[in-house]
């Protein structure tokens, strides 16, 4: 047991460092779930109204994409369905916590400092996992207790709590494995982001297939996110899925500990390669350096967006099949554009998801400015004859054009696949492509918000992520929770028309671009005046 010496102390350190990070985020998650109960009670007080609501929304492929499958129309089922996006964000937080306290610490050299004290070889990994485990368990218990306190069935409430906790714990274990593979925290991040993205994608494809009587419904069973949703809270709970979740977590943990036992401190499993002894002739400007630093991330995002575009675009036609067995609904929808209106609603939903993802990429690459600065790599550049604005511009080129390229690529991919499926390329491609490109102004507002933080409040650049979180939450829960319009208006994505299918005017786009330019200019002016590495 010597390998675990000091775990308890390290766990306290982890919790101390995360006390302003994890509890507030989890508290928001908890409040969101609980408030779904009252919103649904208020908006759809009778069983009949809930049944109608469920019928309409079950056939909306966009909702299936976002939240998963809706099994019935009871209050509990509606709440659990609407909370279906939570496992993904909980998974994200758990990955963050585990990698941050394992590989990031190791890369920064702090792990070495601890390793020289009475701390066992496996203690840091154990402590990081346990801290995340406990946080997720607490969230799960809170959700279960609060749900049954609101009068929902006890079994279903427990299952919903376990769905939340299970997603977090599973991905904490996935993060533990990813942290062993590469020597850089960024690499571990990339691996786990791909794992999470694949899980979500498999779940979406499987669920849409199940709703439209397709043949690949089994794909949801390949996804950890699919597993936790298959606990089916309030909808005839499938308790045996717990065994799958626990078994997979155990197996992943065993793998992580085995890998961590076999490798050296600081090393990854993937070997380090030697670089070039001299720089390529082109590496002679801040822009060339920025290209070196951004190109890997750019390639990853564009590739990911193309895959998303192809997969989500190819599913669009199958949305129509969701209506086949329901004549009443077909009548309702024929008044609002028929089955094609349903497809448009689905496409509009996935475009707004892609817009938020692209904003995440935009923030990530804009924060590179701050990252370079606080890592001490800005000073040597500025100590050469390079002006501050020139340096900032070299990174912003990629922070702006990268997300634009990703959205363009996704729009083209989705448009082409949907065009091929419908056999009407000339009609569908411009519509779908236009819908993707329409998200760009909103993305640029978040880029500019990040630049403003960097220039004016450099120590608070992390708030950029809070801004994105707000946009994401308003998009996911705004309509169900009846938030005030002025609050929703804070998110730039609120002002993007629902495309394809919606009506378009230039005003919101121009307004968003003006706001973006003003914020970016303020940020850059601030950066010119403030001390570097402050």
């Amino acid at each position, binding site marked *: 047991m010597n390998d675990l010496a000091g775990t308890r102390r390290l766990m306290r350190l982890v919790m101390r460092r995360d006390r302003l990070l994890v509890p507030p985020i989890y508290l928001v998650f908890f409040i969101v779930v609980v408030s779904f109960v009252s919103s649904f009670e208020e908006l759809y007080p009778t069983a009949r109204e809930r049944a109608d609501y469920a019928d309409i929304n079950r056939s909306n492929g966009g909702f299936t994409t976002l939240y998963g499958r809706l099994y019935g129309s009871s209050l509990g089922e509606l709440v659990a369905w609407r909370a279906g996006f939570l496992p993904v964000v909980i998974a994200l937080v758990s990955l963050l916590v585990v990698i941050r306290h394992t590989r990031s610490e190791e890369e920064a050299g702090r792990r070495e400092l601890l390793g020289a004290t009475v701390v066992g070889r496996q203690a840091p990994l154990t402590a990081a996992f346990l801290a995340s485990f406990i946080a997720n368990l607490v969230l799960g218990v809170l959700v279960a207790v609060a749900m049954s306190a609101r009068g929902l069935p006890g079994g279903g409430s427990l299952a919903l709590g376990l769905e939340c906790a299970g997603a977090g714990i599973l991905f904490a274990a996935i993060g533990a494995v990813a942290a062993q593979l590469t020597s850089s925290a960024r690499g571990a991040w990339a691996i786990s982001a791909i794992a999470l993205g694949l899980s979500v994608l498999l779940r979406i494809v499987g669920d849409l297939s199940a709703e439209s009587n397709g043949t690949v419904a089994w794909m949801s069973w390949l996804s950890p996110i699919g597993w936790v949703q298959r606990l089916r809270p309030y909808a005839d709970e499938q308790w045996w899925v717990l065994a799958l979740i626990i078994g997979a977590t155990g197996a992943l943990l065993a793998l992580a500990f085995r890998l961590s036992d076999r490798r050296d401190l600081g090393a990854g499993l993937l070997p380090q390669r030697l670089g*070039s*002894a001299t720089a390529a002739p082109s*590496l*002679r*400007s801040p822009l060339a350096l920025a290209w070196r630093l951004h190109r890997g991330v750019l390639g990853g995002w564009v590739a990911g967006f193309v895959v998303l575009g192809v997969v989500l675009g190819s599913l669009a036609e199958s949305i129509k099949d969701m209506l086949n067995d329901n004549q009443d609904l077909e009548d309702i929808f024929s008044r609002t554009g028929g089955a094609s209106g349903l497809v448009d609603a689905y496409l509009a939903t996935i475009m707004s998801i892609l817009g938020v993802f692209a904003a995440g990429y935009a923030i990530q690459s804009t924060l590179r400015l701050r990252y370079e600065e606080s890592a001490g790599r800005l000073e*040597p550049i500025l*100590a050469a004859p*390079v002006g501050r604005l020139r340096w900032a511009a070299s990174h912003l080129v990629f922070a702006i054009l990268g997300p634009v390229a990703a959205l363009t690529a996704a729009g083209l991919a989705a448009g082409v696949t949907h065009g091929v499926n419908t056999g009407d390329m000339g009609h569908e491609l411009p519509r779908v492509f236009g819908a993707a490109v329409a998200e760009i102004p909103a993305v640029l507002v978040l880029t500019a918000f990040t630049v403003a933080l960097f220039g004016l409040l450099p120590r608070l650049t992390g708030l950029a992520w809070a801004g994105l979180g707000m946009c994401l939450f308003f998009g996911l829960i705004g309509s169900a929770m009846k938030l005030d319009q002025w609050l929703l208006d804070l998110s730039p994505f609120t002002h993007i028309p629902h495309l394809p299918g919606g009506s378009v005017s230039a005003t919101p786009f121009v307004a968003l671009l003006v706001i973006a330019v003003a914020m970016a200019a303020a940020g850059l002016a601030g950066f010119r005046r403030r001390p570097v590495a402050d």
Partner: protein
Amino acid sequence: MTDAIAVTGLVRTFGQTRALDGLDLTVRTGEAHGFLGPNGAGKTTTIRILLGLMRADAGSVTLLGGDPWRDATELHRRLAYVPGDVTLWPNLSGGEVIDLLGRLRGGLNQQRRAELLERFDLDPRKKGRAYSKGNRQKVALIAALASDVELLLLDEPTSGLDPLMEQVFREVIQEEIERNGRTVLLSSHILSEVEALCDRMTIIRDGRAVESGSLEELRRLARTSIEATVDTVPEELRTLPGVHGFKEEKGGHLRFEVDNDALDEVLRRIAGAGVRSLISRPPTLEELFIEQYNRRPNSERQLGVSR
């Protein structure tokens, strides 16, 4: 010839702390100037202001005839900087970083680059994340020294270098000064390094310069330590102004320190006491330095603690 660096009355505060409190610093063109001071004395803040990375709250700063904040880009063509804690891009090799920084400055002497890689024994193919602290330091040093610039700003440049490499560093800097006539500002803790390389030096403490001049000049201001064996102990030495830490051991053996302006008087008294042996030793830089360290903040010379 103008001064390469002229700083007067420099003030910079961070909240409540006055990091620089009226600092004066003059570096003449073509000289190597040592910049000494305890941790947190304000050395790095000064260098960051000289680089235009930070603005001064008050005081005047001239660097190579320009304003380091306003003319930053132009001035940086003519200088190279080595930080005390070098961080590299994890996915760029050392060779790539050397080339990049050199080209940003407007060119790199390829022959010099190859020679420095050889002398510092650095493998330029390793990626940034694979270098040890000393090797990262070498990357920044080679990038700076292979550039054709007038002024080198070195902020504790040898931290992490092994003694062998420290020796190479001294040789290379010596050549730079003698052959190429470069101006060097060397901030350092390693006193032997400063003593070996620098013509003049400035000792800074609590954000102001407490001593400035050549080692000879600094010594003149300080005390000489005396060891003597005499037949009869001249008792008046105990109370003579300018004598510090007077100790008498068995057999008429004396040890004490004398302010240099009292040296003449003291020697005259000892001469009349039957001297059998006499050792007088000027203070080493280390002693000068430690004397400054031990002094209370903001106190003047007469409050000095005698050792």
